[in-house]
């Protein structure tokens, strides 16, 4: 039965991929992309990658969809000049050569990917480190310890993306998206009241169990960002042109704590980014909490596309 499932899943993914690329209108492409995210989450579950599945469920099914629908809304609210409307989209490249090139690349990649697919042993350094490590989730071990540099650089990339967006926003007069319609509050208030504690609890749960079971700072941070997105969509948080000291502190705390910790590694070990003996779990937890707060804040503000947020208490 499993081969049938796999084949259908893959055909579904390909069909959706083609739909996204060939969609005539933006909205259609965006909805297809959101469905694609859902199906990707199912794929990660099928391939037994629970950490990735958690992240995809939050990002692919939640935040990315809201972001793209926001972009859709921006395009629709500003329909452009009459000459632009309705005109067929010019093709960037002639279709035939592009298709031939893509097919060629696809065939080469297929050959390559089938040859190197899976089944190799776990790398030696990982296999040695895993059994005695103070964290029991292999993916967390890689992210926080063995390849901590990657995670550090990733927080830098996140911060850079936000700073870039902020620099653009300070010099343009874009209206904030998502000024909610007043009547929707009767519908959305109960959900927000229900979901706020649940999402916070889930984020903490994912963070807390992240050391020993699938989960961790990324997923928890993305979940916090999803909560922030929900607050913006329902009008409880409004974008503002100023960012207060609290927001700024939250934005940089992940990078700051992680870098500080990397430097301190030199005092208790021989290399940066090493964990102190005996206190490894606690320090990993501190780093993870800081990362979660930073990731959550950055993604929320990237969704707002504004430097800051202010609460809107009119009910």
């Amino acid at each position, binding site marked *: 039965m499993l081969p049938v499932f796999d084949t259908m899943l893959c055909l579904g993914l390909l069909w959706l991929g083609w739909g996204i690329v060939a969609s005539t209108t933006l909205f259609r*492409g965006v909805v297809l992309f959101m469905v694609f995210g859902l199906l990707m989450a199912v794929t990660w579950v099928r391939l037994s990658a629970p950490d990735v599945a958690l992240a995809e469920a939050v990002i692919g099914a939640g935040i990315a969809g809201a972001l793209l629908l926001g972009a859709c809304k921006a395009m629709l609210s*500003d329909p452009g000049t009459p000459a632009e409307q309705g005109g067929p989209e010019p093709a960037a*490249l002639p279709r035939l050569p592009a298709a031939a090139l893509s097919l060629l690349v696809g065939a080469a990649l297929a050959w390559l990917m089938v040859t190197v697919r899976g*089944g190799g042993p*776990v790398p030696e350094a990982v296999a040695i480190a895993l059994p005695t490590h103070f964290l029991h989730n292999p993916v967390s071990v890689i*992210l926080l310890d063995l390849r901590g540099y990657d995670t550090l650089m990733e927080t830098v990339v996140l911060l850079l993306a936000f700073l870039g967006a902020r620099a653009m926003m300070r010099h343009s007069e874009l209206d904030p998206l998502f000024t909610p319609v007043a009547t929707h509050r009767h519908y959305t208030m109960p959900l927000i009241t229900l979901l706020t504690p649940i999402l916070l609890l889930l984020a903490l749960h994912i963070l807390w169990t992240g050391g020993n079971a699938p989960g961790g700072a*990324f997923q928890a941070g993305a979940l916090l960002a999803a909560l922030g997105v929900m607050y913006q969509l329902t009008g409880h948080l409004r974008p503002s042109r100023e960012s207060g000291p609290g927001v700024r502190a939250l934005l940089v705390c992940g990078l700051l704590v992680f870098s500080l910790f990397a430097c301190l590694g030199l005092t208790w070990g021989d290399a940066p980014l090493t964990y102190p003996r005996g206190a490894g779990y606690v320090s990993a937890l501190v780093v993870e909490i800081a990362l979660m707060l930073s990731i959550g804040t950055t993604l929320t503000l990237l969704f707002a596309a504004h430097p800051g947020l202010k609460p809107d208490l009119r009910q």
Partner: protein
Amino acid sequence: MTPIVFPVTAALLFAIGLYGVLTRARLIQRLLAVNLMASAIFLFLIVTSTGGPHGPDPVPQAMVLTGIVVALSTMAYALVLIRHLRVLTRAETLESIVDD
């Protein structure tokens, strides 16, 4: 051993995404196609991580996790750039700016 359909799908998805990037002129749709290519690479990385004799290899999984978050932040930034470009030039493709 992971079934052979998954790597083949990854390769084909990459090809579809590439075709989209090459032929679509509207920037947001090009962005969607780029994200499709990223998903194809993630799929391939996860496929290489599974099916080993000693359980899944966590290194590619960690890389994909990092990649997903980076892809999301890049997409958010690109959307801000596209909106900005549109406000400044009223264009939704790059070519129309070059032509002017």
